């Protein structure tokens, strides 16, 4: 059984790196990169397994699920695992060169691996309290990584993020405690069964609100988004890519959707609140992004906006809307991490993040400029690139359910995204070369490799909706559409 390996490999890598990394200089690079490569291969293999068996359950310590803890691999988990490990692989390769600017590379890799262990754990766990523990592992590692540079701004951002994140975690734990007292179980499948048997809703509305606040803050939905534009730009570029690319999605969107769809059940009220929050984040995020001159801060505001799209699509609750939402989740994790890696390349070469200060970098850094053009067109939704297809599906999903106003908002946000990325292109990469940057050189090979790899996925991402590759998304959609049937699937796989 390979399920526990998703947690064991990054945890083991973190342990070995912290043990040996200080003494032997090459160890952190080699260990971290091989760990992420193995994880990528394993997650691709997990998809083959899911296609054959639908649901797989691993019993931790051999205890039967409602009593013991279990790990569940189904379509949605496999989809998320591939997304996370794909991005983390490219990020680890990129860090080999980029992190030379900082001291103590081994500490960086240790924390990165811990964060990865937490995220993989959240995805495959089938136990609610276990989910909380993994959530905290990933969060604490990310608080430390945001403060990694230990400059004044980074510490301030990390403090803000840590306080808000911990309060969110407390809300989540309070919700879990209430659910436990209501159902007397912590296993998510068992909990879904018991909640189906109870006829009245009881404390579910209150628990839903607690989870909406907690996971909403982790996902940076708009009323809870204040930490994100500080925290994400302050981290080193590879970590910004991880945070914006996958962390907010796993900790926020995935955990929220798994609990709401598969355990609590989505009521009409919760669904409309989720959709409304999604639309508000979409619009406010993009409006705030328009005014930014700091490259990374602009990208961070776009994360708020794009998460709004994902939440909108998933909240619609129709198969088409969920398909669009999950597809956009995958696409966003690819192009947003690419954009952050680009911003890292610019910082690496120029040591500035101010857009007004750079100009005409296309002549000196062709790889960065071209990959950035691809990513910008993807995020803005220009037709052949992946972002277009997922946004189109979300907008069509809105129209299908008769929510024309929301569809209009989605189109408007997409246009504003285009405007703001035209600004990035114009000021940073096109135009006349600033004399200051005559001597600037293109970034080293490993960084170029990551950026080109992600750009290729951006360009080819659209083929995922072709019938040949459809199962990748469709199996994940089926899990969410099944709702509380999730319990039957898990218990059938146990036997």
């Amino acid at each position, binding site marked *: 059984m390979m399920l526990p390996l998703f947690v064991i490999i990054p945890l083991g890598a973190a342990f070995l790196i912290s043990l040996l990394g200080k003494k032997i200089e090459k160890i952190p690079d080699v260990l971290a990169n091989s760990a992420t490569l193995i994880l990528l291969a394993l997650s691709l293999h997990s998809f083959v397994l899911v296609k054959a068996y639908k649901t797989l359950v691993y019993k931790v310590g051999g205890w039967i699920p409602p009593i013991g803890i279990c790990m569940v691999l189904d379509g949605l988990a496999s989809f998320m695992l591939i997304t996370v490990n794909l991005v983390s692989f490219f990020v680890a390769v990129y860090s080999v060169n980029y992190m030379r600017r900082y001291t103590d590379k081994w500490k960086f890799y240790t924390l990165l691996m811990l964060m990865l262990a937490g995220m993989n754990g959240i995805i495959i766990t089938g136990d609610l*309290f276990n989910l909380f*523990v993994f959530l905290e592992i990933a969060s604490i590692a990310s608080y*430390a990584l945001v403060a990694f540079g230990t400059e004044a701004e980074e*510490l*301030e*951002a990390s*403090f803000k993020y840590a306080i808000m994140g*911990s309060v969110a975690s*407390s809300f989540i734990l309070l919700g879990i*405690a209430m659910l436990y007292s209501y159902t007397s179980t912590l296993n998510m499948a068992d909990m879904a069964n018991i909640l189906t048997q109870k006829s009245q809703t009881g404390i579910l509305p209150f628990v839903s609100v607690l989870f909406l606040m907690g996971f909403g803050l982790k996902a940076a939905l708009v009323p809870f988004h204040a930490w994100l534009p500080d925290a994400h730009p302050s981290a080193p570029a590879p970590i910004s890519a991880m945070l914006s690319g996958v962390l907010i999605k796993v900790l926020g969107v995935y955990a929220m959707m798994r609990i709401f769809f598969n355990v609590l059940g989505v009521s009409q009220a919760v669904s409309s609140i989720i959709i409304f929050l999604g639309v508000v984040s979409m619009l406010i995020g993009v409006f705030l992004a328009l005014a930014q001159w700091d490259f990374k801060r602009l990208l961070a505001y776009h994360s708020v906006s794009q998460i709004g799209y994902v939440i909108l699509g998933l909240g619609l609750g129709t198969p088409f809307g969920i398909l669009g939402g999950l597809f956009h989740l995958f696409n966003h994790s690819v192009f947003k991490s690419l954009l952050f890696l680009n911003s890292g390349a610019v910082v690496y070469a120029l040591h500035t993040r101010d857009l007004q200060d750079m100009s005409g970098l296309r002549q000196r850094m062709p790889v960065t400029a071209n990959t950035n053009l691809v990513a910008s067109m993807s995020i803005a939704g220009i037709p052949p690139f992946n972002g277009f297809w997922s946004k189109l599906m979300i907008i069509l999903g809105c129209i299908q359910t008769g929510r024309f106003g929301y569809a209009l908002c989605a189109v408007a946000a997409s246009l504003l995204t285009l405007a703001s990325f035209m600004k990035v292109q114009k000021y940073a990469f096109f135009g006349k070369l600033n004399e200051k940057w005559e001597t600037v050189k293109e970034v080293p090979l490993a960084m170029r490799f990551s950026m080109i790899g992600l750009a290729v996925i951006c360009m080819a991402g659209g083929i995922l909706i072709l019938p040949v590759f459809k199962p990748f998304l469709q199996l994940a959609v089926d899990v969410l559409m099944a709702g509380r049937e999730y319990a039957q699937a898990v218990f059938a796989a146990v036997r």
Partner: protein
Amino acid sequence: MSAYLLCFILFCIGLYCILRKRNIIKIVIGLGIVEYAVNLFLVLIGYRWRGRAPILAKGREILNMVDPLPQALVLTSIVIGLAITALIVAIAMRIYEKYGTFDITRIRRLKG
């Protein structure tokens, strides 16, 4: 019931402390209060009136025992809380080195 109410009040005091205090050390203490209110709540939901410890011994029948699972959860949660507090206090110390103040209203270089 009154125990739950007091626990909820404790939670609210912690939240008030986080939201209203200007000294960052006091904010960290507020966070600790919130965490302990949640831990207390977890222990409370496992408690049974006049319950005993759930230890199975020979020749003894236990009729009314407290739920041991929340106690195990609280242990985990306390350890997590310790890690968070340690990290945040470390960050607060570095903030004091950089800014020379604990006042949150004067620690604002990030805006926009």
